[in-house]
C-alpha cells in the first residue's frame, strides 16, 4: 500500500468540525475586525458608519501611539535578543556532561516560566521598590548604593526594568529548547572535529550553531511574536507609565477599548497584527533559509 492510498482512507470531511470551529471563532472575527477598524464604532454609537482609514490616520498622528510603537519594538527586540543569548549560553553550560547538579540548575532556571506573569509582575513590583525593595537593599549592602534606582518610576529606566523582568521569566524556556537541540547533535561530529584539531570555538561555530539553527528559528520567532504582544507584565509593573515611558501596543489597545472607542481600538489591533506579520514573517523566512544553507 502506498502512502497516498493510506492517506485517502481518511475522508476530507473529518476536517469539517475543525474548520467550522476555527472559522467561527477565528477567521470570521478576524475578517470582521478588518471591517470594524474602518468604522466609527464606539460605545455611544447605535449606528456604525464606515469612515475609511480615518482611525488609522488618527492613530499615526497620535504622539502617544507613535511612542507606543517605539516602546513595543524596543521591548520586543531587546527581550528576544537577551533571552536567546542567555538561553543559549546557559544551555551550552548545562549541557556539559561532567557538570554536577545540572538537572537542579535546569529546573531552577526554568521555574520562572511556569509562574504566571501577573504573579511575577507583583513580585517584581516589590523587588524594584526604591526604598524597601530587595534589589536596592542588596545594592546598598554591598556598597553599590550609587546603582540603586527607582526602577519602575524613573522614565529613563522603567522600560529597561520591565525588559529585564521578562528576560528573567522567559530565559529558561529558550534554554530548554536549545538544550533539546544540543542533545540532538550527534557526539561523533564533535569527536571527529576534535581528531581534526578543531578547538572549542571552531566546534561551536561550525558544528553547534549550524545544527542548532532550527532551535534558533523557533526561539527567535516565538520570542518576537510573544514580546510584541506583551501585556500583563507591563500592566502589573507600570501600567504603561510613568507617562508613556512603558506604554506598549496592548496596553494602548486596552485603554482605547476601555474608553469605548472600539473602531479605533480594532484599528490599533490590526496594526499590531500587521506589525507582527511584517517583522515575524521575514525573520522566519530568513532563518529558515539560513537553516538550509547551513
Amino acid at each position, binding site marked *: 500500500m502506498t502512502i497516498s492510498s493510506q492517506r485517502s482512507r481518511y475522508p476530507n470531511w473529518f476536517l469539517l468540525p475543525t474548520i467550522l470551529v476555527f472559522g467561527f471563532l477565528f477567521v470570521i472575527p478576524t475578517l470582521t475586525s478588518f471591517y470594524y477598524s474602518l468604522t*466609527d464604532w464606539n460605545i455611544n454609537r447605535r449606528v456604525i458608519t464606515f469612515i475609511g482609514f480615518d482611525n488609522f490616520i488618527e492613530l499615526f498622528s497620535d504622539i*502617544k501611539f507613535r511612542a507606543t510603537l517605539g516602546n513595543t519594538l524596543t521591548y520586543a527586540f531587546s527581550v528576544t535578543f537577551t533571552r536567546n543569548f542567555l538561553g543559549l549560553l546557559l544551555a551550552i553550560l548545562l549541557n556539559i556532561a561532567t557538570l554536577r547538579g545540572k538537572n537542579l540548575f535546569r529546573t531552577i532556571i526554568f521555574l520562572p516560566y511556569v509562574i504566571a506573569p501577573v504573579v511575577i509582575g507583583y513580585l517584581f513590583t516589590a523587588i524594584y521598590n*526604591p526604598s524597601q525593595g530587595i534589589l536596592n537593599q542588596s545594592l546598598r549592602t554591598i556598597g553599590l548604593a550609587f546603582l540603586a534606582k527607582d526602577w519602575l*518610576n524613573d*522614565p529613563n529606566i522603567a522600560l529597561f526594568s520591565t525588559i529585564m523582568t521578562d528576560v528573567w521569566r522567559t530565559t529558561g524556556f529558550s534554554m530548554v529548547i536549545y538544550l533539546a537541540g544540543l542533545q540532538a547533535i550527534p557526539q561523533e561530529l564533535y569527536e571527529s572535529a576534535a581528531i581534526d584539531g578543531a578547538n572549542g570555538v571552531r566546534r561551536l561555530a561550525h558544528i553547534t550553531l549550524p545544527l542548532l539553527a532550527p532551535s534558533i528559528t523557533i526561539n527567535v520567532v516565538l520570542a518576537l511574536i510573544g514580546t510584541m504582544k506583551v501585556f500583563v507584565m507591563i500592566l502589573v509593573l507600570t501600567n504603561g507609565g510613568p507617562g508613556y*515611558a512603558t506604554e506598549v501596543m496592548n496596553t494602548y489597545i486596552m485603554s482605547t477599548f*476601555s474608553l*469605548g472607542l472600539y473602531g479605533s481600538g480594532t484599528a490599533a489591533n490590526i496594526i499590531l497584527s500587521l506589525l507582527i506579520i511584517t517583522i515575524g514573517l521575514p525573520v522566519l523566512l530568513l532563518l529558515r533559509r539560513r537553516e538550509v544553507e547551513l
Partner: protein
Amino acid sequence: MKKLISLLLVLVIAFAVFAAPSAEVGPKKPSSLTVVVPNTTILDPLEKIFAKYTAEVGIKVEIQALPAGEEYGRLLQTRFATKDYPDLFTMDPGTKQYTKFGVDRLLEMTGDPLFDNVLEASLDFQRYQGKLYGAPWGGTGTYGVYYNKDVFAAIGAKPPVHYADFLSILRRAKAAGYIPVYEASKTEWPLQVFSLIAWPTFVDPAIGDEGVQRLEVNELQLNQIPALRDVFSRYVSLRDAGLFQSGYQAGTYEEQMELLATGKVAVAFQISNFIPSLMAKFGQDYVSEKIGWFPLPSDTDQGIAMLTPAHQILVPRDGKNTDWAMDLVRFMTKSENQAIYFDYNAGIPVYKGVEKELLPYEMDVLAFDQAGKAKINVQNRLSSSFTDFPKILQNMLITGDVNTALNLMDENYRRTGKARALPGF
C-alpha cells in the same frame, strides 16, 4: 353541567392566580442588589445604610468596590458594553457621566419624589437637556490646596494672599527642611488637581462663562487658551524649582496623606474626599486642628475656590432590578440615611433636613462661596471629558513639554466629544 363545572373551575383557578396578595404584584423581588462604588469610598456608612435596608425590605445589598479614578469609569463602561450591569452605581457629578454611558442606557429619574428633598441649586449641573438621570449622593465638596497648619506655623506662614506669596511659602518650607509639595504621581489621578483648581483662578477670568460654553459646543479649543498654557507652565515650574518631593514619580496617595498629616509636607493639591480619608486614619479632631485649606491664589489675590457638586447615584436602564434599584436609591437619599453618610464624610449636605456640623475648612470654603468667589469644577460644566488627563500630566512632568500636553488634552477632549456624538463635535 359538566361544561359549566369545568368553566367554574377554570375561573376559580384564574381568580386564585390573579388575585394574589398585592405585595406579590409588580417586579419580582430580588434576593440581593449590587452597588458599585470606587474603592476610595468610605464603606462604613454604606454598610450601615444597607443593613437597615436589608432589615426593612429583606433584600441584601452587595457592595463592589472598583479601582478609583479614570479606571473606575472605564471598568463600568466595559460592564455596560458587555451588558453586565450593576443594579446601581455611584459616579462623579456632572452631565458628562450621562453622555459617557449614554442617556438611553440610564434610567431617567426626572420627577421622582426623591428630588423634592434636594436643594434646587445642587441640581443645576445635573440636568441634561432638562432631564435628571442621577440622584445626588453626598455633599458639595472642594478641590484645593490642603496644608499642614503646624508646618505653616513653624515657618511663620499664613494662607497666601497671592501666587508669589504662595511660592515664597513653599520656598521657606523647603529651606526649613519640609517637603513643600507632595505629588502622588504614581497614583496618577491626583496630578489633575493643580490644573483643575487653577482653572477658576486663572482660566475662568480669562475666558469667562462664555468661553466654557464655547468649549462645550467645540467652538473653542483647549490648546487655544493662553491662560491654560500658563497654568501648565506654572505646574512644570514647581517641578523645575525643586518644590516637589524627591522621586516624585513614585509618590502615592497613601504616602501623601501620611506625610501631610504628620507634618512632613507643607501642602498637597487634593480633593475633598482627602479629608474623610485622613479623618478615618487620624481622627476628626486631629484633622480639624492640623489641616487647613485655601484656593490656588491668583497673581493679585487669594484666588477663586473650586467647588464640586455632590456625587450621584445612577441606575442602568437595562439592569435586572431597576424598580428595586430605585427603591434603594430613595432609601439611601432619605434624610436620616444622609445623616449616617455625613457621620463619616465631609461636604456640605444637598438634601433638606440633613444637619451637619461643618469642619473648619468647610467654613472657609463656604466663606469664599458666600463672597461670590467660588466656581464649579470645569469638568462638571462640560459634557465631554479631559480623557487620559492624569497620564498627559504625568508625561508633561517628565518631558516639561507644555505644548504637547495641551495638544493631547485638546485632542482627547474633542475625540471624546465626537465619540459621544455631542452637538458641535
